[in-house]
């Protein structure tokens, strides 16, 4: 891999020739702007930044990297929380911010075609006048990009009912790690061949760079109703969630916050949640009006049966927004009650919620590290916020230990080390706790098919790269006639 200054200078010249001098950054101060993504504890200044204007320029950048043997990392808005877009000091950061056009909104096809730098919420804004929206709604939807969502298979509060990015991406055009432009999927479902689109979504930039994305648009629901229920304990709120699911209701979202998360949200955005609550649940139902009306009454009574001491029902969009404001601002809000914090992302089977929360409480008490809990209760996706003060000797280490122990709890209970933030740089080291060496080796067969030289976002997802080498085991001992497909040889 090229790391010398001369090599980088030569690559910079090649990139400038390929995509224009104004699209390549090599100035040290300017490069510093790109040193981290949303996980700011990791910082690496890239050797170069390229800002391609279109797919062909993106392919030209990748081809130049391949020719130079230089690794490259793709980046959208840089909001990722696992360090998936952390640059390489010896590599090129390929930034999608100049590819921000919505190419087509086709309500008749229930499709939109967008460039990767388009902001998630912009798709919904463009589709709403036609009565449609883009369902995946990560909390960062006002700033995160579709390209980044595709790389990370982003979720959001409403994926309980509507699924994740992978369920809503119908096609991509990508630049492969060889610099080829390839189209996967498209406007119609079930394209023949392997579902490489399904493998590509969520591959965290290790299989190539998306340059155009075709997404599904979802019809706006006729009715949306939201309630906020306050409980004394998280166990009660968890029992209410279980009761709702057991009743056969599939809410659009079920979100929970514990007392510390509520305290932070109140301090930050004054959302006015019921005082004294040990837990709040936000339950949202959407769909045809008569269905929502029937199920909403059921949800309300299930919350009461499970000891909700206060239930508020959003009277209009403004009140609904206020319910959500506390929840959606929760990550940033803990900054009000703690100088530093780690946003964790793990998944457990929902039925293990009580047990896991109890263990998190014990871990917190043992190590003297506070943990605020925010989660997508409907699908068991926890976002514990581990609070610490880096200025206090040893707290950072203890906070990291607590954070890691929470992931171990998720694995022990048959869950996952990440529900929506991705593995990235941050969690590659935890992958062997969830998967065997054989599992990881098998996944990397796919990587070797796309990227035998390991240039696309190396060091992410997998703790140790697989050396791809030549395709092993040539065909042997086969008669040419057999190979030609003559079944009669049998």
């Amino acid at each position, binding site marked *: 891999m090229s790391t010398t200054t001369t090599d980088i200078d030569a690559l910079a010249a090649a990139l400038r020739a390929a995509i224009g001098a104004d699209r390549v950054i090599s100035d040290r101060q300017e490069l510093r702007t790109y040193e981290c993504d949303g996980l700011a504890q990791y910082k690496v200044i890239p050797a170069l930044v390229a800002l391609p204007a279109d797919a062909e320029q993106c392919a030209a950048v990748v081809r130049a990297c391949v020719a130079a043997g230089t690794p490259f990392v793709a980046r959208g808005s840089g909001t990722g929380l696992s360090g998936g877009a952390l640059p390489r000091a010896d590599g090129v950061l390929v930034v999608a911010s100049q590819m921000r056009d919505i190419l087509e909104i086709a309500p008749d096809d229930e499709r939109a075609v967008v460039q990767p730098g388009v902001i998630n919420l912009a798709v919904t804004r463009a589709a709403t006048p036609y009565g449609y929206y883009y369902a995946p709604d990560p909390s960062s939807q006002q700033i995160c990009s579709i390209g980044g969502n595709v790389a990370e298979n982003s979720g959001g509060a409403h994926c309980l009912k509507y699924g994740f990015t992978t369920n809503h991406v119908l096609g991509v055009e990508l630049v492969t790690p060889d610099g080829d432009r390839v189209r996967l999927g498209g406007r*119609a479902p079930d394209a023949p061949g392997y579902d490489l689109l*399904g*493998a590509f979504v969520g591959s965290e930039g290790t299989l190539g760079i998306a340059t155009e994305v075709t997404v599904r648009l979802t019809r706006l*629901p006729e009715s949306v109703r939201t309630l906020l229920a306050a409980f004394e304990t998280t166990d009660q709120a968890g029992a209410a969630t279980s009761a709702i699911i057991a009743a056969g209701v599939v809410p659009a979202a079920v979100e929970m916050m514990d007392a510390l998360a509520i305290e932070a949200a109140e301090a930050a955005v004054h959302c006015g949640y019921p005082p004294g609550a040990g837990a709040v649940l936000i339950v949202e139902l959407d769909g045809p009006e008569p269905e929502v009306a029937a199920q909403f009454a059921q949800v309300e009574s299930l919350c009461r049966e499970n000891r909700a001491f206060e239930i508020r029902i959003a009277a209009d969009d403004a009140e609904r927004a206020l319910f959500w404001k506390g929840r959606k601002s929760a990550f940033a809000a803990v900054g009000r009650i703690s100088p530093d914090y780690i946003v964790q992302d793990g998944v457990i089977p929902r*039925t293990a919620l009580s047990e896991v929360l109890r263990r998190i409480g014990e871990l917190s008490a043992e190590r003297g590290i506070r943990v605020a809990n925010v989660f997508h209760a409907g699908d068991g996706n926890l976002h514990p916020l581990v609070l610490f003060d880096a200025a206090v000797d040893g707290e950072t280490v203890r906070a990291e230990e607590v954070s890691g122990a929470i992931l171990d709890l998720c694995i022990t209970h048959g*869950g*996952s080390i990440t529900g929506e933030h991705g593995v990235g740089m941050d*969690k590659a080291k935890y*992958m062997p706790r969830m998967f065997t060496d*054989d599992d990881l080796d098998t996944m990397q067969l796919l990587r070797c098919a796309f990227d035998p030289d390991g240039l696309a976002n190396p060091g992410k997802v997998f703790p140790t790269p697989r050396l791809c080498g030549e395709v092993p085991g040539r065909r042997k001992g086969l008669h040419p006639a057999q190979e030609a497909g003559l079944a009669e040889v049998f």
Partner: protein
Amino acid sequence: MPADRTLDQLRAAAEVVRTAGEHDTIDGVPARYVAAPRDTGQAAHLLRAAAALDLAVTFRGGGTKQDWGSPPRRLDLILDTTALTGVVEHAAGDLITVVRAGTRLDELPATLAGAGQQLALDAPLPGGTVGGAVATNTSGPRRMLYGTVRDLLIGVTLVRVDGVVAHAGGKVVKNVAGYDLGKLVTGAYGTLGLITECAFRLHPLPATVAYVSRAVDDLAEAGRLAGTVRAAQLAPTALEVDAPAGERAMVTVLLEGTPAGVTARAAAARRLLGADATEADQPPEGWARYPWRDGDVGLKLTAALSGVPRLLSDARAAADRHDLPLALRGSAGVGVLYAGLPGASDPERVAGLVDALRATTAAVGGHTVVLTAPAPVRDRVDPWGPVHGLELMRRVKQRFDPDARLAPGRFVGGI
């Protein structure tokens, strides 16, 4: 009978091996041996032994779709999954289940319905296994609401061609750790590895269902009506068109939900479809079945949603031009139609029609795939048509099966 060293060596890996009988063929290609492992471990031993012996292997479940794709170029061992059965886990509170791949799809309700739950995947061919449904990516009307295998499969256990056992995904619905190999093997026709266990997300069984149907004379009108229903906010579970050759077409909307909700929505659907629409609590005849019989020609036609009315009428017009009775049926609400032709149809004319349908589907952003056809037809047509990303697919196949011993030739581009 002379000693069979290959059989001995396979049996040393696992006892469950026999020599092939006259019915042990894959799409007409005879096998030498059949092995029926009872668990993932046995399957791994067998595939490792098969690798050492350089045997070509094809997987077989219920055998309901063995005539799909192309016949294998080479075949020694059929690895039969019908002993690899059973529900490993049903965590009702978490709405997930883990099942062995040889389990019949139509046996799952016996386990799941008791908890008021379902694997929301239609089984167009009765008797098929879970593994077969995943490997061929079959689906039916309810895909409009619940999606297809790729949306329901949350974890998978595979045995590679070299006998290595690998897992991907897990047992929780929300999970983005590692590559989604479940999607990679979905619809891969057993060319990348043996699926031995699948974890699925489940859905609650609906309290009430209603099928609202309307007969129409004209296929374009059927497509237009489907578009009208789709644009309303009824959230249907399925939106189907059934157009047998030479008969009136039927548009059917499936609504699921609470009793009060379904009553109101069914009334709204009747208003949209027209005055003579009817309502039933049972599906119409042929629901969730392909519009062809054993030995017929079976096609899958896809389109962008706006192209569905055009696909319906152009497909019928093309069939009329070729003087062939084309039965059309499928999910107008998602852009997937199936088409059947009598097996005795003139192969030249069928090939001509397939060409015409390829042009028609391409014009509406879709594809025409020949799922099944008698040999004389298959000799004249490419079952798959144009495939985007074929070069990448070949590279994937090379990494997973470098010696091309898994169902060689059965899949796109001769993979």
